[in-house]
């Protein structure tokens, strides 16, 4: 199902929910992460508590989430935006995919978003909030 990321009220990026579609809009501070590796640590980083995290690296979740270290930790982020999240992760320690993990903790994830385009909007701003929604722009 389609989901939408609204920046500054007027700019809208369409994507698809990988987790259950949001019933109510989420309005949070949005931050971006440019690292190519290490999504698992970003998700639990207390600095990003309740924030919307957008990943610029387009392929997130390649090695899944490992049981021992992460699966029991509640992600601190409020929502996740990616271009593509991997359904079939591959790693000997992985016990669930990124989507499964976020679903378990009820963290929404929007995919198929041009995350680079979003970051270019964010980069010159010290702080910006965004709205995640299931409603189409009017």
């Amino acid at each position, binding site marked *: 199902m389609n989901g939408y990321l609204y920046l500054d009220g007027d700019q809208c990026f369409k994507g698809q929910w990988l987790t259950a579609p949001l019933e109510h809009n989420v309005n949070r501070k949005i931050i971006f992460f*440019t690292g190519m*590796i290490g999504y698992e640590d970003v998700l639990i980083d207390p600095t990003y508590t309740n924030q919307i995290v957008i990943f610029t*690296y*387009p392929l997130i979740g390649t*090695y899944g989430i490992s049981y021992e270290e992460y699966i029991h930790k509640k992600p601190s982020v409020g929502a996740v935006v990616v271009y593509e999240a991997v359904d*079939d992760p591959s790693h000997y320690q992985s016990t669930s995919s990124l989507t499964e993990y976020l679903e378990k903790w009820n963290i929404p994830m929007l995919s*198929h978003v041009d995350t*680079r385009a979003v970051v270019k909007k964010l980069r010159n701003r010290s702080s910006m909030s965004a709205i995640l929604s299931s409603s189409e722009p009017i």
Partner: protein
Amino acid sequence: MPKDTSIQSILVIGSGPIVIGQAAEFDYAGTQGCSALKEEGYEVILVNNNPATIMSDQAFADRVYFEPLTVDSLEKIIELERPDGILATLGGQTGLNLAYQLSEAGILERFQVKFLGSSIETIKKAEDREIFRALMKELNEPVPESEIIRDVETARRFGQMIGFPIIVRPAYTLGGTGGGIANHLAELEALVKGGLNESAINQCLIEKSIAGYKEIEFEVVRDSTDTCIIICNMENIDPVGIHTGDSIVVAPSQTLTNDEYQLLRQAAVKIVSKLGIIGGCNIQFALDPTSRNYYLIEVNPRVSRSSALASKATGYPIAQIAAKLAVGYSLSELYHPLTKHKSSSFEPVIDYVVVKFPKWAFNKFPAADRRLGTQMKATGEAMGMDRNLERALLKAIHSLDGGTDLKKTYLIEAATDHLEQMLTEQTDERFFIIMELLRRGQRVETLFEMTKIDRFFLQSFKKLVNLEQQVAAQTFETITKSKLQMFKEKGISDQYLANEWHVTERAIRNKRKMLGIKPIYKMVDTCAGEFEAYSNYFYSSYFGETELNVRKDKRKVLIIGSGPIRIGQGIEFDYCSVQAVFALKKAMVETIMINNNPETVSTDYKIADRLYFEPLILEDVLNVIEAEGITEVLIQFGGQTALNLAEKLEEYGLTLLGITSNKINQLEDRKQFYQLLDDLTIPHMDGEIVQSEKELSTAVKKMGFPVLIRPSFVIGGKGMEIISCKTELERYIQKNRIYPVLADRFLQGMEAEFDLAADGQHMYVPAIIEHIERTGVHSGDSVSVIPPQSLTSDVQEKMIGYARLIVQKLQYKGLMNIQFIINKEKVYVLEVNPRASRTVPIISKVTDVPLVEIATKVLLGKYHLSNDVIAHHSNNDFVCVKYPVFSTYALKGLDSKVGPEMKSTGEGIAIASTFEEAMKKAFQNDRLKKIVQWRIGIKGNGNDKRLKLLAEAAGVKLIDIEDHYSIQQMKEMIALFSPNESFVDRKLREEAIKNRIITFTERETLEVFLQGLAVEEWSVRSMGDWLDRVKKTKEVSIR
């Protein structure tokens, strides 16, 4: 630290002729390095005997020496030039080894040449396994259980103690040559024997094999203040056991967790710091897929093929920065050229996936052993980048000139168990075999067990199979926008859709555009969009917002590059493409480059005004053309790849500057071509296009043996054969399934060729090239000489006359290469190539005539020749010899006998005052110095009076080789002459190649080799000095 002002001049060593394992990547590194040094005001003295390189152009070095890459030669140059410093880390293993030998021989010390960049001690530590291992032990960095051996007996003991499999890696070699994995004692012995012979220092590392581990590479840059950054890490899709040059590689790594990445990263930084590297460095690790265990595989203390890939993958110019670090700068003092305001110590971050796919020559050489291992076999590579893995991979594959369909008929026809058997052999076809097995429902898990390719990648391959099935389930009429959008986003080509849906590619293109599905272009900016960048480097994606903001008011021209390096289409076309860009820039025309080879200079974003890293298939080329609003295209410089697009581009309304596909066809289509020659009464071989077996037999009967048979529109003589008797004809008919073919009468004679630039009426011929071998040897594999040594002036006049007729008749514009056969005094035109050729860079450099620039200006309509210019060189000026260089040592099963099908991977030149001295330089090697009594083995009936006289003069003993020869006999030879086709001859040649003995299969080559050996004194001289001398003598003669 600021730059070193104690030095003014720097000697740079290039990597020499292209061989497998050492290709265009060092021209890219060298060109960047040399221009970085010049930018800093240093005087650059370059030694590189590879004439096809861009680095050896006078624009990049103050003085260029086309001299042998041997210690003796370098010593002479150093003595003459007295450089203050030497930079050896840009010229691959060749450069590094030479610098090391110069240092060991005390030559650097004697002439007080400062070693720049990483010190000799550092290089020793990284290159000598014994010292390296000890150091790693000290650092507590794991290396596999191993032993350095110098004899077979020690290897045998190690094998018995450690158990198998065992990997053999010779020290100081090219591309892992001579190594391999031994599964039992007998294999170990054989490998070690070969490996010791291969190693420049007679040393092998044998180690417990860790084949099947993940192979992870890091490209590291470090400065003298110990700032150490990672430019890029890369994961080989093919696990440890297959040479990284033969692996499909993805950047950044995909299957490493943060913990694993940091583990290896820390190790890399620790090792590079401890070694004291200054500049670029490549580190390879093996990571256990089921634990945190890892091993260090290798450290290359220099720029490499991987660093070229990392540079193109990230936009970070490693070689340029490395050169500046070598002269004293620190990273924080240098700016990053793409972001401008960031220091070069900022680690690149990418927001796309990069895939590199190797290009092999096996389709050309069906007899060669296709199995991959620790010895590299690929001749080149292509890179694809996009926001998803599937399209990045498909882009790389689309760039290989092998079509866009992943289904290969011969694999589809094979039985499943046969495919599985093929898969265990680890050939170059493994990706396509896996795809076919996936199509048949083979499980990812089973394929993982068989190949140890990570399940993540296999899943991605499976997605491609899924896409194929989805495409097959759709039709052109019913396809929806969202479905088509998805196919395009994942990389399915228009061409593939057209084939599957039985419509034309144009229909697909039109429908796609009508539905609003067009690619956008994203910028490569090294920072994932975090900062504003000023990059001119783009890749396409079928999703998201475009970042392209182009002006359409300025005249702009598209230059189509030549794709991956292959035999028959090498870096000479990159040279021509880049020269064309420079010429266009001089003419104030905006330059747009499209190419996909990560090794080359043309894909350095500093060259053209904008660079598009894309496959060279019609769809992607047209996409760029439309995005840029281009109407004019240059296709003469990218070799046959670019030329093959000509007709289609015209159909889409593009102007091919200076030429039409009609003209191209008149020269390339055999029937039209012979008609043209007949109209002009220019003699040519009798030839026919035959459509069937029957027509072929009739034609041969009419012409008589021998005949030359070949397919039309060929690269490098692919599929060409000389048929000299009925049995051979029958064999050919049985083997060949594809018609039409061209059958020409084969005439024994001499061959010659030249390149010209024409303006539609007049032409410029800077030099005539004579081939040493007689007809039947591909021009790329023949030794050739400028000026001609035995062509009469009458013959030369005829050649020029015929060229003039063709140029005038076609009102031809641009570059043209013409090949001739000379029989007695009669001249026949063999073929005309309406494009740049292999010899254009050589001619441009040794005559100082910028052929590409002249042609480009003509094509732009900005230049006219007022007269025909025909240069006449005499031996009084200088003699330039071009010689082919083969990589047969890397391709087992490929017979070294030269013929109509090109086999060489590269070429070198040698220049001297006499032909004999040039020949001496051409065949310079250190082996000749080591052997006291020169012996040449002769097989066959070449042992006559003339040869004996030549041998005697050269101090060479000719030895008749019987059918039974001893290996010892072989080892004592400096060369082998074996011209025949028999099985015994083939075996003999293979044995000689294995022992790295020069092998001649044409009598003429042997003769000139002997003439060269007879010369004792030889000297070195820069190209500039040769040209000055010519100018002076010309002035004198005018007076």
